[in-house]
């Protein structure tokens, strides 16, 4: 009886409110589903980021230790190079291998930046570059491509002889004198009793 007493405007009001409630339910439930999906994705992100943090945690210490070892090696090699080759030649050698590196200089030798790097060919012509140009494929050969090849790798042997201590091929001004030979030589190499004596006659031939 009460329901039937509701006027038409009241029914319209009820339907309108019902539509609003249905819209609220539909959209809010859809939003909740989307937010749950976002939460699930963020859980995966957090797990992966946690792994990244755990895996990268020791990297800094390890890399610092590696850099420390490499720094010690660089310091040692720089000091050895400067000690053995001298500052000028050392800078020239490094600049020859790595063109332009002389401007940066050596790390532990600030004065090296003020050294004018000599051409590597002027410093090591008799040493490293000679070996390189002989075709021994030393890395430094790439730093002097203009240098002529000194040795015919197929046939020549004179260039290789230069590397050894024998000096006759260099044409020196004075060599050790040759020994004097002959009867008047101060040193007789074959001392026999029959030298200077009449020639022995051979026995007569039988007919």
């Amino acid at each position: 009886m009460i329901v039937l007493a509701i006027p038409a405007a009241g029914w319209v009001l009820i339907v309108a409110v019902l539509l609003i409630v249905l819209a609220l339910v539909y959209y809010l439930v859809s939003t909740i589903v989307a937010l749950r999906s976002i939460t699930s994705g963020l859980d995966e992100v957090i797990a992966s980021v946690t792994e990244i943090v755990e895996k990268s945690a020791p990297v800094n210490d390890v890399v610092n230790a590696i850099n420390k070892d490499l720094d010690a090696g660089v310091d040692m090699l720089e000091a050895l190079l400067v000690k053995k080759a001298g500052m000028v030649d050392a800078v020239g050698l490094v600049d020859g291998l790595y063109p332009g590196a002389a401007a940066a200089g050596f790390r532990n030798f600030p004065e090296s930046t003020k050294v004018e790097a000599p051409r590597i060919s002027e410093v090591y012509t008799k040493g490293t570059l000679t070996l390189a140009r002989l075709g021994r494929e030393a890395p430094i050969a790439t730093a002097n491509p203009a240098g002529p090849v000194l040795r015919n790798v197929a046939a020549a042997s004179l260039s290789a002889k230069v590397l050894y201590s024998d000096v006759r091929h260099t044409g020196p001004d004075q060599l050790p004198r040759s020994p004097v030979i002959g009867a008047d030589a101060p040193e007789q190499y074959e001392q026999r009793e029959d030298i200077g004596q009449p020639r022995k006659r051979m026995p007569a031939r039988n007919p």
Partner: protein
Amino acid sequence: MTLLWIGDAILIVVVLPIVIYLLAATLQAAKSIVPSVRSIAATAAAGSKDLDAAALLLTTQDQVSRTVAGVADYGGSLDVILDDAKEGR
């Protein structure tokens, strides 16, 4: 009765569209976040997998240490074998 009809009209013509519009916009925004989150999750997982090789840094550290020690030994020998540079060079 007239006021009731006016209220119905306002509810249907004004309130209901506004409610639907706001809820739809909220849902669209929430759904637009989902692909981004999934992409971030995939990227983070790939980054984590890339870092699996980080453990090899310990081997690298050991090798570097041994190499530097060997170079130091050679350097010490060269220091003995080779003459020092002349003064002024």
